[in-house]
């Protein structure tokens, strides 16, 4: 079997790969967003802590 | 009668107070003090059952108010920052409806008497829209006169009241305490009731 034939899916390539492609894209976006959110949360935690430390230092 | 055991309250993610315990017997007057943001209003709202305490319990006649529910509500009156007064209605209608919500039917005669007692003679059938802030507050306070609930929970009852009305309020509380009532309140103004020792609870 050659790959060109495989990707053509007997003329249904657009529909089949459109489905799987978009699903893959969505999964990747979700994973990136989850990681991004984790980084943001940790960064906020650090900022919060630094701010508190500074306050303790001044008082 | 009212017992508070080890009460804690949180708003959002910061703790307002914790480990709060006190009790209130018939004929006692309790003032809740504390700076702004220390949870005075939250404490009163917790006593009303609006806010679920983070820990501890509130007991009325020895039972948790969560279990008593409607029985407890039949024996208390709460007056908050908001007057619960409708602009479109007149003073008389407002009083009759708020008494009805509190579960007691009030005749026109009783209602008019209460409003007159609060110094609103001649204004009973005017729409509340045209009354001043102080007069609206009096309409709200008139609710205390028509019910027969032993526990009063008053959040800043004296705001917007003039000197005469403050005196009236003191007299009202005095009579209520003399009838074995109980009052929990917050205020920024001095309030003294003749012949009754004022207990103070300070939230820090």
């Amino acid at each position, binding site marked *: 079997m050659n790959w060109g034939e495989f990707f053509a899916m007997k003329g249904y390539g657009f*529909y089949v790969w459109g489905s799987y492609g978009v699903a893959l894209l969505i999964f990747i976006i979700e994973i990136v967003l989850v990681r991004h959110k984790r980084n943001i949360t940790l960064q906020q935690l650090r900022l919060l802590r630094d701010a508190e430390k500074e306050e303790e230092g001044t008082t | 009668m009212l017992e508070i055991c080890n009460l804690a309250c949180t708003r959002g993610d910061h703790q307002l107070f914790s480990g709060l315990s006190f009790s209130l017997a018939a004929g006692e007057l309790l003032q809740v003090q504390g700076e702004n943001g220390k949870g005075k209003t939250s404490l009163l709202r917790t006593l009303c059952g609006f806010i679920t305490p983070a820990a501890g319990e509130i007991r009325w006649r020895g039972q948790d108010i969560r279990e008593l529910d409607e029985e407890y509500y039949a024996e208390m009156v709460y007056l908050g920052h908001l007057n619960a007064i409708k602009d479109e209605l007149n003073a008389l209608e407002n009083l009759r409806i708020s008494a009805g919500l509190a579960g007691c039917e009030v005749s026109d005669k009783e209602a008019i008497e209460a409003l007159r007692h609060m110094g609103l003679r001649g204004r009973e059938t005017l729409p509340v829209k045209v009354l001043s802030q102080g007069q609206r507050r009096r309409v709200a306070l008139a609710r205390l006169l028509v019910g027969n609930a032993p526990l009063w929970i008053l959040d800043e009852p004296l705001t917007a009241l003039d000197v005469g009305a403050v005196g009236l309020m003191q007299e009202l509380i005095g009579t209520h305490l003399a009838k074995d009532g109980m009052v929990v309140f917050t205020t920024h103004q001095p309030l003294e009731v003749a012949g009754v020792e004022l207990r103070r609870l300070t939230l820090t």
Partner: protein
Amino acid sequence: MAINWFKYSAPSTFYWLAGKLAPWFAWPSAVLFAVGLYIGFFVAPTDAQQSEAYRIIFLHVPASIMSMFIYLVMACYAAVGLIFNTRLSSMMASALAPTGALFAFISLWTGALWGKPMWGTWWVWDARLTSELILLFLYFGFIALHASIDDPRRADRASALLAIIGSVNVPIIYFSVKWWNTLHQGSTVKFTGTSMHAAMQQAMFTVLVACWFYAIAVALARVRSIILERERNTQWVAELPEARS
């Protein structure tokens, strides 16, 4: 062996546990996707009626199942959070919602791409499709309500109530749409009773398990951020090594 389950319902312990567990679901999920799709594309034979287009089924059916299943799990978590006032279950509910909405969307998308070559139209007002669309709306409602309430406790409780009402309504909606559909035009969409090849079943099942693992992994990862956000004022968060600069 006695395990203290309550210990794991404390956010601090669960944060650690979720961090440990997430990779154990993430990697198997990737492997299972690969295996499932290999079976689906290389082992399973071409369908006699639908030719190659039927291969969308290996994604479409698992996504549809997951979208409904996640809604139920979410509603259960939310209900537990509402009744027993456990913070962690409410957090799990809000961690699951976006993933569930994604699966609902994938299900609709692949359904449309499948429908076009098979029925000649992107969309039919079939009971299944319409209910799936409404399920997506219910997810949106849950997420939107949760997002617009500032107090996290109130947000948890309010959206929990909504999720429960939604789960009561889903069957009613499904049957009413089904009825409406049969009255209108007669169901144009029928899954013809061709017996499925064993390899097709295997592929579909493997992808379903992969989706399942994926959902668990993502929800665990997301709930860790939610825990940190909500518990930011506690001592144990302050002592976390990853929060140190």
